[in-house]
């Protein structure tokens, strides 16, 4: 196997990796700005210098030439090489800043140049705290500045598009954003204009940066030049907790990180998953944070003589139990939801199965032609495949309307799915029935419901979703509800303040906590009333049971999903046909 020596340590490599990527893969720290593993390599920031040499091959013996000590003769490249564009070859010798003064000096020199015209407004810059320039300046930068002249001034606060704002002075011209629009989103909306130290990215005159993936440029910007119009000035990075999650605005199920402060989600960023979304996610998924914070249902709602009143949990449980015991099995319409998690859907199925109701259906939300073949799919709901695999009856909105409008059902129970909001049915269809709705946000459907059970959403309880390609992925709780506590829930991520704060910091906030429980827990509590409960204590128990009772889900567990960034399930022929 070919070998490479980095700082006198021998590594083996396969294929033709670039030296920088190889070093990063080995966990070696090395500074860089313009390089991004998913974009082309321009080698323009010149930050990732290494000294590189190749052993001299003796053409006659076809072996390495050796010096008098028996060591290989190494021929070094005359200049410092950018490791991002340098391909590893057999026997190559690399010296980084750890062993070479020249490389150390090179890193310092380039940082001096980059910082020369950089405004150094870290105290008011949104990027501070997660800024590669800031981090690498502390690690590799010069001690002070020799630049005693006027900095170059460029436009600030330019609204490039509806979601992205540019501060050209902070820009270091790494061209990551330009390459993103050229190579990934393929809208070619950004370019660098002007020349030399006056250049900065811009859009063509008369156009705006309305790329549906535009906010990814904010993520990959190595400085604070591109900022999100929505998130800027809202929070410092170190005040938030970063928790892995899944985007549920779309069937693709992009992997995300949610950033939480005071139990409010402040932003959503993509998380790397090579099998689903790489480093990217659509802008529309990032706006989903509002749904997680705003307009939440807190405590159960009960309709009494046409008026909504807040009810207690025990009252809601009793009402629910009474309702289902008063109706015959054929008078039930039980709806799972492709919007809800696998845990909730499965518990719903199990709950009603034990009460003699086998047939559970769900209503699809597939908008033909809305997908783009990249990270936005026609399927608007995250768990359509999950419902199919559980064996739910798949109903198109039209067939469902026909089914429900006859008025033959006395009790309709639905997991979170805004059927009225997306105009599948209207209130007249529900008049004759007692409508129980499990939901986390107020909407038209919850307005129309007779009993509303507030349930935790995907960032408050572990929720599993199966995306359009059959990838089973789960979220991790990120914000507290009244019944959960980040100090007790070991799954919740630990932020900087958790780690370094004192008890006087008073960072644990009671604010913005919603009075809701996971859907499965409510069903478990109702079942407990007649001692037919399932014994679920955590959502992990449910996934464990699914994996061991349903062959579609074999191999699924939270552990596996966390370790392998989701578990790939086989999408059966049947489900595939239905998707097509």
């Amino acid at each position, binding site marked *: 196997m070919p070998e490479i020596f980095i700082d006198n340590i021998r590594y083996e490599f396969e294929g033709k990796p670039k030296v920088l990527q190889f070093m990063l893969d080995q966990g070696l720290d090395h500074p860089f700005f313009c390089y991004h593993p998913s974009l082309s*390599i*321009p*080698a*323009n*920031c*010149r*930050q990732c*210098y290494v000294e590189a040499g190749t052993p001299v091959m003796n053409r006659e013996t076809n072996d390495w030439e050796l010096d008098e000590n028996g060591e290989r003769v190494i021929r070094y490249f*005359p*200049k*410092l090489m950018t490791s991002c*564009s340098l391909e590893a070859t057999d026997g190559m010798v690399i010296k980084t800043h750890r062993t070479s003064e020249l490389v150390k000096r*090179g890193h310092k*020199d*380039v940082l*001096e*140049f*980059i910082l*020369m*015209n950089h405004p150094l407004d870290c105290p008011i810059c949104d990027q501070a705290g997660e800024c590669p320039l800031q981090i690498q300046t502390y690690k590799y930068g010069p001690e002070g500045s*020799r*630049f*005693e*002249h*006027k900095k*170059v001034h460029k436009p600030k606060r330019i609204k490039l598009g509806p979601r992205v704002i540019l501060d050209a002075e902070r820009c*270091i*011209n790494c061209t990551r954003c330009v390459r993103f629009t050229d190579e990934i989103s393929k809208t070619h909306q950004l*370019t*660098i204009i*002007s*020349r*030399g*130290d*006056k*250049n900065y990215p811009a859009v063509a005159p008369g156009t705006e940066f309305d790329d549906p993936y535009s906010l990814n440029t904010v993520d990959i910007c190595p400085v604070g030049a591109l900022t999100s119009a929505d998130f800027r000035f809202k929070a410092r990075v170190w005040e938030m907790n970063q928790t892995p999650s899944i985007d549920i605005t779309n069937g693709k199920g992009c992997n995300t990180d949610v950033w939480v402060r005071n139990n409010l989600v402040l932003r959503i960023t993509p998380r790397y998953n090579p099998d689903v979304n790489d480093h990217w996610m659509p802008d529309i998924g990032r706006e989903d944070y509002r749904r997680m914070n705003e307009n939440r249902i807190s405590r159960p709602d009960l309709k009494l003589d046409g008026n909504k009143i807040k009810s207690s949990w025990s009252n809601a449980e009793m009402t629910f139990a009474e309702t289902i015991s008063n109706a015959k099995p054929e008078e039930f319409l039980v709806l799972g939801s492709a919007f809800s998690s696998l845990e909730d859907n499965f518990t719903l199925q199990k709950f009603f199965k034990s009460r003699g109701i086998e047939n559970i259906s769900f209503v699809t939300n597939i908008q033909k032609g809305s997908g783009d073949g990249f990270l936005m799919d026609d399927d608007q709901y995250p768990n359509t495949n999950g419902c199919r695999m559980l064996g739910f009856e798949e109903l198109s909105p039209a067939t469902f309307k026909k089914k429900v409008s006859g008025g033959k059902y006395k009790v309709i129970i639905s997991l979170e799915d805004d059927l009225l909001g997306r105009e599948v049915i209207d209130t007249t269809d529900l008049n004759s029935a007692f409508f129980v709705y499990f939901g986390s946000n107020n909407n038209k459907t919850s307005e129309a419901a007779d009993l509303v059970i507030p349930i935790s959403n995907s960032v408050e309880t572990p929720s599993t979703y199966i995306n359009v390609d059959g990838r089973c992925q789960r979220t991790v709780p990120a914000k507290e509800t009244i019944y959960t506590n980040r100090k007790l829930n070991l799954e919740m991520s630990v932020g900087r303040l958790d780690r370094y704060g004192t008890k006087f910091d008073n960072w644990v906030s009671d604010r913005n906590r919603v009075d809701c429980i996971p859907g499965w827990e409510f069903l478990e509590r109702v079942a407990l009333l007649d001692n037919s409960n399932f014994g679920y204590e955590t959502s992990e128990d449910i996934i464990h049971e699914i994996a061991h009772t349903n062959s579609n889900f074999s191999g699924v567990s939270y552990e596996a999903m966390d370790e392998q960034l989701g578990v790939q399930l086989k999408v059966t022929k049947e489900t595939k046909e239905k998707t097509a």
Partner: protein
Amino acid sequence: MNTDWKNFEPVLIPNIKDLYKIDVYEKNGGYEQLKKVFKDKKHTPESLVNEVKAANIRGRGGAGFNAGLKWSFMPKPDGGPRYIAANGDESEPGTFKDRVIFERNPHLFIEGSILAGFAMDITAVYVYIRGEYRDQINMMQKAIDDAYAKGYLGKNILKSGFDLEMYVHSGAGAYICGEESSLMESLEGKRGYPRVKPPFPAQKGLWGRPTTINNIETLANVPLVVKNGADWYTSIGAKTHPGPVLYGISGHVNRPGVYEYPTGMLITDLINDVCKGVRGGKKVKAVIPGGSSTPPLRGDSLDGVRMDADSLRTAGSMMGTAGMIVMDEDTDIVDVIWRISHFYHHESCGQCTPCRDGTGFLEKTLIKIKDGEGEMRDLDILLDLCTQMEGRTICALADAAAWPVRYAVERFREDFEKRVKKTVYAVA
């Protein structure tokens, strides 16, 4: 070494009236070599490449690389298009030689391009001319149109079955587009950013196809080699750097202009005999031998320095484009270097950090010194900045910007020291 330069008959721009007209050119033996190659089968493509390689035509664009060797890097034809990009961007201050070819002898260049195209099985030649040469672009276009009309270009040239197209492309006034890879980007309609090498243009050039980039003057030398043979060519001028060359001499000389002489001329001969001495009989203070990016030489170190790559390297400079700038003893070197630095600051494309910001830092420091605000340590900063820039970028523009400053500070330090404040810092 051929020292008999005084009897040298110009061959690139011979003294013939109206040579730019195709009829006159043909009457004086023009396009004869083309006929010899295509009709009389004087050369196969391989033998033509070998002939040019043996002639050792060193690229006239600055780098001085053997043109035939460059041609031999082209991969074997695979049926797809292959290109020549002829570099007439010529935007280095002090260089104005290609312009004379466009004006006086464009057909020699066209003939050379066709021969080069034949040698490398080229589909199309792009003649990239700097946008400021508005008249020259029109003249070149006229010459190409004439050649098309006579059947020297286009389909089935001289019934040989060989096709070649030739296009003129005008630059938009960027110095960086004279660098070969950014010239290609510019030709493709993109922003003129130099490309990372490898891949080299011979593998992946214009539109990802094999491409050779040659200077206009280099290609104009090809018909001469084909006509007289490699031995004749190597007998002209310096041994390691043979051939006739166009010296573009400007500055404080009595008769500035473009002169065709063999390589290896003594710089003193060029100044004193060819250009009839320095204006007002003054002494030479500095000479920049090959365009503004080459290191300046001191006037008192010119004895025996010849205009060829080896001699100039020994003297501490470069041949470049042979665009020589002569400065007399009244010249203020600080002002000169500031102006050169300003040019590179303005022309840096902004792709690589060391050049983008380094050129600005250099210029701002030089302005400080020029305005009398400089301190001694600024000179050290200048030298330090040059170290930070040299060889650290994708193309050679950072070197081009740093060398004049570095060698000016090293060779004319007293001029700089005169301009800076005599501040003495107390050491505690």
